[in-house]
C-alpha cells in the first residue's frame, strides 16, 4: 500500500498506465521537464523519455487536436489542460471532433483519450483559474466526465478513463490536491466510470456532491446529525453518465433530496439531478428537491469569491430547510 494525496495518486496512475502500455503518451503545457505546474506528471519524462512525456507548445487547441489524431492512430494520449479555465481554445476540438469522431465515422475511428484538468475555486487564484465547467462537457454527447474526491478514487478512476474506449474529461478538484492522504494500492486497479459511491448511509435525507464540495458537505452533515438527523451522502464521482439507479434508490428510502455543487446554479448539474429524482422518485418525495450552488455570476476574484461558492453555514442552513420542510 502507498499513502498518497490526490495529486500523487494521479501521478501514480499515470506511471502505472505508462508502465503497462507503451502507447500511453502524456503531454501538456509544462508537463514534461517540470512535471506540470501542480507536479501531476513529476518524474514521468525522466522515467519514460521525452517522446512519451513532453512539454507541448502553448496552445490548447493543438494539445487536444493533435491528441485526437494520435488517438485515432493507436496512441492513448492523456493530456493536461493547465487549468480548466484555459481549456476554451481547445473546446472547439473537444466538441467538434473528440466527442463525435466515433459517430461521424460510424465506429471506424475512435478517440480513446483522456483530458485532465484541474478545476474549481477556493485557492485564491487569478482570473480563469477557478471555474467549475463540468456541465459544458456533460452536455456534449460523446464525452464522459469524471471527478474524483479522494486519492483512492482518483487513481482507480483515472486508470478506468485511460482504458475507456471513448474520450473522458477528467476534472481534478485542485483545492484538495494535497488536502489529505489515503492508502492507495500500488498495483493497477480500476473504479468503474458511471458508478456513484454512497459515502455514508442515512434515513432522512439524500445529499449528493462531488469533488472538493464533499468536504464542505460532510461538515454540514456532521452538524445536522448532532441535531439528531440521519443523512445519506453520495459522491457522484461520474458527472456523465449519471448513476441514476443509486440516486433514485437512495431517495426512495429517504424521501428527501439535495445536491451541493460549486458550478453556477442555472442550467447547472443540479438541475439535471433533480429532474432525475422527479422522474424516478416523485411519489416518495416529502420535500421539494433542492440545489445548493454557486450563484449565476462571473466567478469573482479572491476578495469576492466567498460570495460565490456555498460555504458550510449556507449548506447546513439549506439542508436543514429540506429536512424541516
Amino acid at each position, binding site marked *: 500500500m502507498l499513502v498518497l494525496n490526490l495529486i500523487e495518486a494521479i501521478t501514480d496512475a499515470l506511471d502505472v498506465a505508462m508502465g503497462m502500455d507503451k502507447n500511453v503518451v502524456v503531454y501538456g503545457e509544462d508537463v514534461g521537464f517540470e512535471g506540470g505546474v501542480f507536479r501531476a506528471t513529476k518524474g514521468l519524462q525522466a522515467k519514460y523519455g521525452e517522446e512519451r512525456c513532453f512539454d507541448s507548445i502553448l*496552445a490548447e487547441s493543438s494539445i487536444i487536436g493533435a491528441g485526437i489524431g494520435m488517438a485515432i492512430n493507436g496512441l492513448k494520449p492523456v493530456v493536461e489542460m493547465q487549468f480548466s479555465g484555459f481549456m476554451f481554445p481547445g473546446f472547439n476540438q473537444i466538441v467538434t471532433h473528440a466527442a463525435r469522431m466515433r459517430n461521424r465515422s460510424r465506429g471506424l475511428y475512435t478517440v480513446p483519450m483522456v483530458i485532465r484538468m484541474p478545476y474549481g475555486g477556493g485557492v*485564491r487564484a487569478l482570473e480563469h483559474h477557478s471555474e467549475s465547467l463540468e456541465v459544458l462537457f456533460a452536455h456534449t454527447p460523446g464525452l464522459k466526465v469524471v471527478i474524483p474526491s479522494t486519492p483512492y478514487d482518483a487513481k482507480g478512476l483515472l486508470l478506468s478513463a485511460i482504458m475507456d474506449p471513448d474520450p473522458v474529461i477528467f476534472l481534478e478538484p485542485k483545492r484538495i490536491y494535497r488536502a489529505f492522504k489515503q492508502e492507495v494500492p500500488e498495483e493497477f486497479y480500476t473504479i468503474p466510470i458511471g458508478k456513484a459511491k454512497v459515502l455514508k448511509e442515512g434515513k432522512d435525507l439524500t445529499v449528493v456532491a462531488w469533488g472538493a464540495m464533499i468536504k464542505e458537505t460532510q461538515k454540514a452533515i456532521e452538524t445536522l446529525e448532532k441535531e439528531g438527523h440521519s443523512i445519506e451522502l453520495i459522491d457522484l464521482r461520474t458527472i456523465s453518465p449519471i448513476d441514476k439507479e443509486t440516486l433514485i434508490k437512495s431517495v426512495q428510502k429517504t424521501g428527501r433530496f439535495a445536491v451541493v455543487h460549486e458550478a453556477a446554479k442555472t442550467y447547472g448539474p443540479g438541475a439535471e439531478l433533480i429532474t432525475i429524482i422527479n422522474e424516478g422518485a416523485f411519489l416518495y418525495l416529502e420535500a421539494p428537491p433542492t440545489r445548493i450552488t454557486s450563484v*449565476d*455570476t462571473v466567478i*469573482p476574484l479572491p*476578495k*469576492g469569491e466567498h460570495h460565490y461558492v456555498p460555504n458550510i453555514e449556507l449548506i447546513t442552513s439549506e439542508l436543514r430547510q429540506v429536512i424541516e420542510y
Partner: protein
Amino acid sequence: MFLENANPLVDEMIQILNPEGEVVKPEWMPELSKEMLLKMYKTMRLSRIIDEKTLQYQRQGRMLTYAPNLGQEAAQVGSAAAIRQSDWVAPSFRELGVWLYKGAPLYNVFLYWFGNELGMKMPEEVRILPVSIPIASQMQHAAGLAYATKLKGEDDVTIAYVGDGGTSQGDFHEALNFASVKNTPNVFVIQNNQFAISTRRAIQSKAKTMAQKAIGYGIPGIQVDGNDIFAMYAVTKEAVERARNGEGPTLIEAYTYRLGAHTTSDDPTVYRDESEVEEWRKKDPIDRLRIYLFNQGFWSEAEEEAFVNEQSEFVKQTFEAVEQSGLTPLEDVFDYVYAEKTPILETQYQERKAFYAKEGK
C-alpha cells in the same frame, strides 16, 4: 529606417545602447529630451521597486499570486514611451511598465492583483484593456480596436503585447492575419522572455526568430534588443508612425529575459540554473540606462538614492492602502454581469443578502 531593412529570418537584433551603457549606433539614437529620458528611467526604476516590494509582501502572505516584470522593463517602457496617450493598449499580464508609463494608478494595479476586479476600472484616459490571462487572446481584440479606429476615421494606434509562448496560440496568428488583411493600425510586441513558465523558447518554436512569424502574414517583423530602451523606443516609434500613416501593422520581437519567476506560484530553480540568470543580470535594462544617464550628467547617485527612498515609501503606502480596502462587496459581484440584473440574479442577490443578515454578517 529600421523596418525597411529588417530581415527577421536572420537572427540579428537592433541594439543602440549596449549592456555597458554605451551608444553603439549613434546614427540610430532617437531624439529624446532630458525630461523624457528621466521619465523613461524613473518608470523602469519604479516598476522594479514595485516588483521587489510586491514579492516581499507576497512572501509575507500579504499579497496573492503576482507576475513580476523583472528584466523586462525596457521592453515595456521603451515601447510604451513611443505611443501617445490616446493610443490603445491590449496587454497580457506582464506589462507593469506600460501601465505605469500610461498613467495607471498604482493603487488600481495593486488592487487587481490583490484579488479585486475594481482595480481594472482604470481612469478612462489610460486606455488599456484589463489584464488578459488567456494566452494571446488579447491580440485579437487589438486587431478589432484598431479596425474600429480606422473605420471611425481616427488616427489612434493600438499596441498589443504577447509572450514568446503566446506565439503558439491560434489567436496570435489570426490576429496578425486580420490586421494584415484589413491593414489596421496595429503594433504587436512579443516580449520574448525565453520562457513560457518552464517551457523554453527553443521548445516553443523552431523558428530562428519570433519576428519572422510576420513573414507569413505579409507584414514587417523585426527583432530588437528588448533590454535596450533606446532600441525599443526607436523601433516602436517607427512602427507606430507607420501604423498611424495607414501603412498597416508591424510585429516587433523584444528579445529579453524573465529574471524572476513566471508568477509567485512558480519555482524557476526547478528548470533553470542560477548561472544562466546571472548572465542575463549583466544585461540588465535599468543598469544600462542609468550608466548612460550618469555619463550624460542627467542623473546622479544622490538623485538615485533619493528617488528609490521616496518611491519605496510611495509603494509601501499605496500597498497599505490597498490592504485596508477590505473584501469585495456582495453587490459588486452581481452588478456587472449585465447592464441590468436579470430577475434570477436579483433573486440570488437577495437570497445571499438575507443569508448574511441571518448569520449576522
